[in-house]
């Protein structure tokens, strides 16, 4: 299982760091890409990750109204929700992508989300794109 998390440098990335400091375990399927703001994440990045075979993608930013760039997290949430609505047209389940708002001190929230998201994606099974390319191999 491969999950990509785009984490903003202010809140989300730091909440994951804090989870580390506190030794809160979460599945190793989750790998983080640091971005300046969740608003940096272009829809293309998410689609690219899924097309390459990621089983799930989530975008994590600061809590509402606490974005260091005023509205980046609103933009990010909007993009992920629009994208998740049209995913079925590509033959993928909507719930393979998600948006998380988390403050830098809320390691618990990050970890709980990470565990649940991993479980949710696991229950969907592997990304059909990857399944398909494997069958071909």
């Amino acid at each position, binding site marked *: 299982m491969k999950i*990509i998390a785009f984490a903003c440098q202010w809140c989300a990335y730091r909440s994951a*760091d804090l989870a580390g400091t506190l030794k809160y375990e979460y599945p190793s399927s989750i790998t983080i890409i640091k971005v*300046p703001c969740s608003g*940096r994440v272009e829809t293309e*990045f998410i689609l690219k990750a899924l097309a*390459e075979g990621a089983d799930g993608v989530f975008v994590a930013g600061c809590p509402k*109204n606490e974005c260091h*760039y005023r509205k980046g997290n609103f933009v990010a949430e909007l993009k992920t929700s629009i994208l998740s609505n049209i995913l079925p047209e590509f033959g993928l389940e909507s719930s393979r992508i998600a948006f998380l708002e988390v403050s830098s001190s809320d390691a618990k929230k990050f970890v709980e989300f990470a565990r649940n998201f991993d479980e949710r994606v696991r229950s969907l099974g592997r990304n059909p794109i990857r399944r398909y390319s494997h069958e071909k191999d």
Partner: protein
Amino acid sequence: MKIGLYICHCGRNIADVVDIKNLIGYFKDKVNVVRDHLFMCSEPAWEMIRSDVTNKLVDRVVIAACSPYNHEKFFRSALETAGLSKYLLEIANIREQCSWVHGKNKREATEKAKRLIEAAISKVKTLKPLDDLRFEVERSVLVIGGGIAGMTASLDLAKMGFKVYLVEKEPSVGGKLIKFDKIFPLNDCASCVVSSLMAEVANNPMIELITYAEVEEVDGSFGNFNVKVRKKQTYVDWEKCIGCGACTTVCPPKAWKPNEFDEGLSKRAAMYIVSPQAVPKKAVHDPELCVNCGKKKLGTRRFLRGGKEYLTPCEKACPTKAIDRSKSWNPEGELLNFNVGAIIVATGYKVMEKETFKEYAPHSPNVITALQFERILSPTGPTGGKVLRLSDGKKPKAISFISCVGSRDVRYHTYCSKVCCLYMLKQARLVKEREPEIDVYIHVIDVRAPGKDLEEYYIEARRMGIGVIRGKVGGIEELPNGRLRILGFDADLGMPVEVEVDLVVLATAIELPEDSKELARKIGVAVDPSGFLKEDHPKLRPVESTLSGIFLAGCCQGPKDVSETVAQAKAAAASVASLLSKEEIKVEPFIAKVNEEACSGCGICENVCPFNAIKVNEVAVVDERSCKGCGICASCPAKAIDIQGYSAESIIAEIDALVG
């Protein structure tokens, strides 16, 4: 391109979980140099990286170690001193985001570490040799809040030769301290401590004092912030007002309301001067309270009554004609605009209202907050400093203080408000000094008096006969005769106690004012879970906010006493000075870049940028000073915008490495 990979053991923090030998074997043929070290953040390891770069063995560096937030700057300096762009570096976070969270499964952790390192290698290959942005520095500072923190910081900066704009939302500076009579631990006169500072900030030629004003907008960044401040309308010509107070006594009682300065214990009129010690000492008109005497609303043309021009009582009272109700005053006030290099936020605190605590009989006028009691003890307060209860003007026979009201309580705040134990002891001692026959009880969970002179202060209070009862108070009952029954617990006796008193003082919790949260949101400073403004690091960067160029001082960062507030204010001033005394500042170059050939000039980026940092004439142009590099504009349909350091190419390279 020659890539060097440096893997840290972090003592056993990483090496116990991640198989470093396995990593070295795996990456040996994928990069030009692989080395490991017990502590990559040590001097010898730094030297090892530097010499590899100097000897041209590597020209891009990947470090697999702890979070970049720990030592990224230190590692960058190794590249820089070796003559390489310090931004040709990428860190794979294999501690916080790997060994520490996957400790139970070493094989999986090692596999994940491989992927994280592969992503960092892919990214480092895409990086460009960037230089820092260099900006001229605006040698001036905005200080928000004119309490003791803001005043101290302003004066220190002014003395070092910086221009200071001190913005205070009330008509006068002074903060909470000007309301107090005495301050612990020396019980020296609060007014003597603060009044001289208030006079100094008003008279220092380097300080522009802007009271009755609020910060509306902050743009730009460290070194050059553009600030918009709204100076609220006072409806009094402050050039003419001499602060005599004649106008403040003539409004009819219908135009009175509870006086904020006395914490609601007295009344003030629609025309008012905040306090007898106000600086600047100028009158303010409150149009919401005004009853428009003689139907002469603000902006009504002059008219005659009985052959003479009609003047409202306030107009008539003013000896200098500072009040003119026929003038068309702009209710929006005035918008001021200026540039500063740095900002200090010093907006202080508020205390919780008693109404929140239903169990403590808040409807009784004889239950008051400690801040209200400060006003009773003050010679400028409603009783002139006499210990009286306001409900009947009688001297109380017994007073109880209740601690931790809203603090150390999971229902409200888990933190300790830190100063309450000591100010309760102070207030109790002042009562005893003035009226030794009054019985005084303090109900506490425990007495917290750490630090110089403070334990001694507590012992002196006990010696004076103040009863300290250890145990939480469950409730307060109001008796038919107006007295109050405290339903407490005495932990030393291990049994419930009941005390009947005439006055109850609640030490309610200290909080960040609601509008400071709003301010924080506007300027981009973070609020931490306790609800106060967040410092960048509690030990290493305690006066820096999370945003570069913005500093914190005083109780807006957390509860503290005056000594700590002043220390923090001086530290903030010194930190600002050390940064602004340079000719230019260097800023990380992670901002938007426009590819002019691809730009179609559609203007979408201009609309989405939260900082007005990108403007489209023929093509989009980024204002390097205002751009904060969030990357929202990079969703450009023509793909004409990229973010340095976080380019689409870099991110896609990472995705490929992590998923592929």
